[in-house]
């Protein structure tokens, strides 16, 4: 099925507004997910007063909402030009970074926040989380430049 797919038949490629608006939805989605994760990360880095575990519990449902929005809009964007994306090194980097970032978020990051750790470990875990998510954003943007 994939082999006979012709992107020019995709409705996304036949409407002036569909593609850019989908991108906006994608950006809004990852703003919600990455933004809520970053709130916890900043706290892990030592900024703010709330306990990290409380912040995590309050923001986690919204992180998930954001992830669902971005994981629906992302593959739709991909469907507009799959052969280009598959061959694009920045896209490949982004997919690996995204997979690592999501796994990290729901394993190491979550466990450290829930169990509590020393300030040093907290800082490391928070900084790594921010770095991972920024590299996902960078990978996405550089698709257009490599």
């Amino acid at each position, binding site marked *: 099925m994939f082999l006979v797919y012709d992107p*020019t038949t995709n409705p*996304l*490629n*036949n*409407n*002036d*507004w*569909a*593609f*850019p*608006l989908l*991108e*906006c939805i994608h*950006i*809004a989605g*990852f*703003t*919600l*997910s*990455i*933004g*809520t*994760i*970053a*709130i916890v990360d*900043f706290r892990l880095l030592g*900024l*703010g*007063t*709330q306990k990290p575990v409380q912040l995590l519990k*309050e*923001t986690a449902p*919204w992180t998930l909402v*954001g992830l669902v929005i971005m994981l629906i809009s992302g593959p739709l*964007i991909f469907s*507009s*030009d799959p052969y*280009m994306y598959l061959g694009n090194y920045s896209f490949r980097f982004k997919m690996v970074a995204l997979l690592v970032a999501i796994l990290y978020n729901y394993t190491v990051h979550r466990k450290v926040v829930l169990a509590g750790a020393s300030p040093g470990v907290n800082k490391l875990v928070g900084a790594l989380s*921010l770095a991972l*998510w*920024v590299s996902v*954003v*960078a990978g996405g*943007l*550089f*698709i*257009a*430049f490599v």
Partner: protein
Amino acid sequence: MSIAESIQSIGFLTAFRESAMVYPIVMTTHLSCIAVFGGMILMTDLRLLGVAMTDRTVTDVVNQFRWWKRVGFCIMVTMGSLLASSEAVKYSPNPYFWAKMSLLSLVAVHAAIFRPLVYNNTAAIDKERTLPARARLAGALSIMLWLSILTMGRMIGYWDGPGSPSKPAAQNSHTAAVVQLATVGRAPSR
């Protein structure tokens, strides 16, 4: 020489525009800040609407994010100014750019109205039994404003010049639109 030409011919802005890597790196910083700090704007707004972080007082939520939103805003404006001024000739006729700037000025109007009513008055809001209408209105308008700013910002890259409302989508994608915007002014080989 037009104003836009004079702006973008300033030495460091020319170097900035013609660098193959600096331009996308600054764009990445701009976009990463949107992701990181935009989340704080959204969470504050959703708290004012009474749908997120409702276990915590409005005072708590507003104060916790306030300074970080300001830091993020400054970085975003700095990066955005670099992106726009180094491509002033390209941006100045772009209606989406001006729509974005107009909406950004409405953010100042929003602050002027709602800062005394809501953001600097959270203790009074927390005393009320239900969230007052002014808090909900502030949150709803803020979300609408920022989502519109995001959309207009993204549309800047899709405007093709006078007389062409937007490109036929079948001939372009994300890539074409961003590259088209970012490579103007570079060596013709690109």
